[in-house]
Structure formats: C-alpha cells, structure tokens
C-alpha cells in the first residue's frame, strides 16, 4: 500500500517563475492538504482540497493555488516566486476508514534563487 507520494523531490527555480508540485494521496484517502515548512519551523497549513474544491485556506497569498483531480491527486501551484518561498512543501492526505489519521509525504524541496 503506497503512502503519500510527492514529486519532484527537489527543484530549483528563479525568482518570478512559476512552479507546480504534485501529490498522490494514500490509497483510500480523498482529502489532500498542503503545508509549507521553512527551515527550523513547523509546517504551516496552506490549503485543503476535498471533492475537487478548496475547503480551507491558511494565511497564504493568492499566488498559492491548487487543484484536486477526480482521482484525488492534487497539485500545488506557486506563481511569481519569491526568495521567501524556498521551503519544504508537504502534502498530507486523510479520509476513508481510519479517517482521523493524517499522513504526510516526504515533501518537495523548493529553492528559489
């Protein structure tokens, strides 16, 4: 049973560019959340998708957007990248039986130069 998978694992982008990160939830899960983790800090909630709609959003600007597909996979898009967007981006999934447990992927390391 595959857990939460994310791609790419590492990437480097230039300021002003756009990036797309991808996530496949754990089998049987229908809810996907995205978190940003800066170095030395705890993960910060970006937003959550359920039934292909954004259900909750944290304190992040509109440059951060997402999408959930019918197969429950999800994308996180960040436009007009800033140096401060450099972080580990984590995808978490939940839902189905044992719905109370939220599982995280290994993350995508984004470096903005």
């Amino acid at each position, binding site marked *: 049973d595959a857990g939460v998978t994310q791609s790419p694992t590492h990437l480097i982008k230039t300021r002003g560019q756009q990036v797309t990160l991808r996530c496949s939830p754990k089998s049987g899960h229908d809810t996907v959340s995205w978190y940003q983790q800066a170095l030395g*800090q705890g993960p910060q909630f970006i937003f959550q998708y*359920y039934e292909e709609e954004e259900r909750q959003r944290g304190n992040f600007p509109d440059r951060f957007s997402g999408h959930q597909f019918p197969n429950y996979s999800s994308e996180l898009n960040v436009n007009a990248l800033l140096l401060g967007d450099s972080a580990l981006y984590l995808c*978490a999934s939940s839902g189905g039986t044992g719905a*109370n447990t939220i599982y995280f992927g290994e993350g995508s390391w984004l470096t903005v130069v």
Partner: protein
Amino acid sequence: LAKTTQPISMDSYEGQEVNITCSHNNIATNDYITWYQQFPSQGPRFIIQGYKTKVTNEVASLFIPADRKSSTLSLPRVSLSDTAVYYCLVGERYSGAGSYQLTFGKGTKLSVIP
C-alpha cells in the same frame, strides 16, 4: 484551535525512557491530542493519538490526565534513531468532508546521546 506549548529541546542517553510533556490549557471538548515525529528533510510521521487516559502502541505511550490540559509522550528505551523533532498537536478528530487542518508549533528537538 488550541495552542500547545512544549520544550524546545531535550537530551537523553540511549536506552533511557524519554517523556515529553505538552501543555494545552485551552483544549476543547471535541479535541484530540496527536503526536508526530519528524526527521530532517522528511515529512512528519504519525506516532500516536489519544483523547483521555492512556494510549499505547508499538512505539510510544500517551498519558493524558483527567483535566486534559496537558499530555505526555513517552518513548521507551530510546535509541540514536529516535533523534528527531516531536510535535504535539491538538484539534478535532477528522470526521470527513475536508474540514480538518493541523496547526504545528516548533516542536521539541530530541537529541539522543550515545
């Protein structure tokens, strides 16, 4: 969302039992307590979750007093591989319909010394 307070760091020798206490004075009636472990450059890993009294699984125990204003994660006989950051989180138990988010603090950095 209830705020949590936990020590910034702890040191322990290999083979010892480690107890990490988390304070959550404003915990709500419907809130559960969940602990995650995170190694550098990896995603957080679920350790244990509880509502009251004691919960035990194959890796840890969670002690919650009757007033639920604090909780203690107990790791028996730690090894070097237990060196990680441990996060205590408080929130409603996920009930579907995309309504759950986790609020992380800075966690407790546990260093296990040989």
